[in-house]
C-alpha cells in the first residue's frame, strides 16, 4: 500500500479505500498534491482534480461531514449546503457532465434546507414530525457502510494478488477422437440414399467404388506433377483389371471436367492434365 498518501477520511473513523491509494492528485506549482485538503480551502487549481478523487456527491458529503467531525445525524444544513455549492460551482466550470450527480445532490440539500426553515406541519402520528434530513442521513449511512465494506473486501486475501493457486501439471490422456466404423459410415450413406430416394428427381446411377478410388488417385498424381503422360498413369505390373479401372477413372475424370486429355498430333504422346486454372 502507498503510505505517502494522507488518508484523511480515515481519521473520521471510516476507512476509505480510495483515498488511501490515490496517486498524486495534481501538481501545484510543481509540487505534487497527494493529500486531500485538510480543511475546506482547496486551491482553485486543484479543485477539479480533488473533486474527481471523490466517488460522487455522497462521498464528498461524507468527507465534509467527517472532516468537520459533524454528527451525521445532526447535519448543519446551512453551512454544508453553502460549502457544497461552492465546490460544485468550481467543478461545473470544467466538467459539466461530472457535475450532474453533484448538482442533483445540491438540489436535495437546498430542498432539505428550505423545508427545515418552514414551520413543521402538525404530525398525524404521535411519533413527531419527520425530519427532512432523515432520508439523506439514511443514504449517507448506507453508502458509508458499503464504502467500508468495499475496503474490507479489498483487505481479504485475493487469488492472484495475495496468494497463488497450486497448479501442478497433469497430462491428461487426450480424449480419444470419435471413432467411426465402416458400418456406421454405411448407415449414414444408407440414410442419405433413403432420403434421396424420396426425391424423385434424383436419378440413380451405379458405379464401382474402385473407379472412384482411382479417380482420387489419378487426381493426386496430377496435383503433384500438374501433367502426366497418359501412359505414366498405368503400371503394367498392376494387372489387367487394375489397368482397366484406371482407364475408366481417367475417362470419368475427363467426363466430369476434372482432367483433360491432350495430344498435339496423331500418335504423339497423350497427356493428362488438370483443367486450366485448376
Amino acid at each position, binding site marked *: 500500500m502507498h503510505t505517502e498518501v494522507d488518508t484523511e477520511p480515515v481519521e473520521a473513523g471510516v476507512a476509505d*479505500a*480510495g483515498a488511501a*491509494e490515490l496517486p498524486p492528485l495534481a501538481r501545484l506549482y510543481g509540487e505534487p498534491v497527494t493529500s486531500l485538503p485538510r480543511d475546506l480551502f482547496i486551491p482553485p487549481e486543484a479543485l477539479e482534480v480533488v473533486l474527481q478523487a471523490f*466517488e*460522487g*456527491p*455522497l*462521498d464528498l458529503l461524507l468527507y465534509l461531514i467527517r472532516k468537520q467531525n459533524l*454528527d*451525521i*445525524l445532526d447535519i448543519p444544513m446551512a453551512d454544508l449546503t453553502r460549502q457544497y455549492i461552492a465546490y460544485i460551482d468550481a467543478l461545473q466550470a470544467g466538467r459539466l457532465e461530472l457535475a450532474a*450527480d453533484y448538482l442533483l*445532490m445540491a438540489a436535495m440539500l437546498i430542498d432539505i434546507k428550505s423545508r427545515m426553515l418552514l414551520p413543521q406541519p402538525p404530525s398525524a*402520528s404521535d*411519533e*413527531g414530525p*419527520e*425530519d427532512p434530513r*432523515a*432520508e439523506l*442521513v*439514511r*443514504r449517507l*449511512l*448506507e*453508502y*458509508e*457502510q*458499503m*464504502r*467500508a*465494506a*468495499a*475496503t*474490507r*473486501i*479489498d*483487505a*481479504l*486475501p*485475493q*487469488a*492472484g*494478488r*495475495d*496468494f*497463488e*493457486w*497450486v*497448479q*501442478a*501439471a*497433469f497430462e491428461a490422456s487426450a480424449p480419444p477422437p470419435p471413432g467411426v466404423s465402416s458400418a456406421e459410415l454405411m448407415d449414414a450413406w444408407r440414410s442419405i440414399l433413403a432420403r434421396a430416394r424420396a426425391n424423385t428427381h434424383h436419378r440413380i446411377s451405379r458405379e464401382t467404388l474402385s473407379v472412384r478410388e482411382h479417380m482420387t488417385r489419378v487426381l493426386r498424381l496430377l496435383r503433384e506433377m500438374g501433367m502426366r503422360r497418359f501412359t505414366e498413369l498405368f503400371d503394367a505390373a498392376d494387372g489387367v483389371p487394375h489397368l482397366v479401372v484406371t482407364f475408366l477413372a481417367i475417362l470419368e475424370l475427363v467426363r466430369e471436367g476434372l482432367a483433360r486429355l491432350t495430344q498435339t498430333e496423331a500418335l504423339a504422346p497423350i497427356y493428362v492434365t488438370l483443367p486450366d486454372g485448376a
Partner: protein
Amino acid sequence: MDDSAELSPAQALRILEAALLTASEPLPVAALRQLFDDTLSAETVRRLLDELREAWAERPVELVQLAGGWRFRARTEMQPWLDRLKAERPARYSRAVLETLAIIAYRQPVTRGEIEEIRGVAVATPVIRTLEARGWVETVGFRDVPGKPSLLATTRRFLDDLGLRSLTELPTLTGLEQTLQLEHDPVEHDRADNEPANPYGPQEHTLSSARQ
C-alpha cells in the same frame, strides 16, 4: 486399474493429493469421490481431506476448503517471493469497482440502478464489465420492472478467489446502529427490513441492525 475398493488409505491419500495438486479449480467432495468410482463415502473422503490438510500444515502450500470445494494454494506469506516472478503486480481495483462489488456482494441480487442509488453516482459499464470479466459477478435474472434490468449477483468463483466458503463468511458489515439508535425518525424504515431474510446468513449480514 485396480478396484478402488481395494485401495489402502495411504493409496487413497496419494490419489487425492495428486488430484488436488493438479486441479485447475476447487474440487467438491462429489468430484473427489469420482476418483474412486464412488466406492468411498463422502464421509470417508472428508476424513481423508482433513488428514491431507493436516499433513500439509507445515508446508508452504495449504489445502483449503472454499465455496467450490477443496484446493491447494500457496500461503499468503509466500506471496512476496512469488511476486518476483511476475512481470507486473496485479492492478488493484478502483474504488468504483470495489464499492460496486461490495454492494453486489451484500445486497445481491441487485440491479445496476439500485447500485447507483446507493452510491449516488452512475455506475460506468466498464466497472461491471471488470467484475464480470474476472468471473466474480454475473447476471442471475431480471427484475420485473420496465426495462427489465439485470439482477447482478456474485459467483462461486468470487468466494473461491477470496478464500471464502460462503457469503456468510464475508466481513461483517460495520454496525452503525449505535449512532442510528438516536435517530428519532421511525418512519424512515429501511428497505432491507422488509426483504426476506438473506439466505446466506441473516444473522451476520442483514443490514437491518445497521439501519434502524
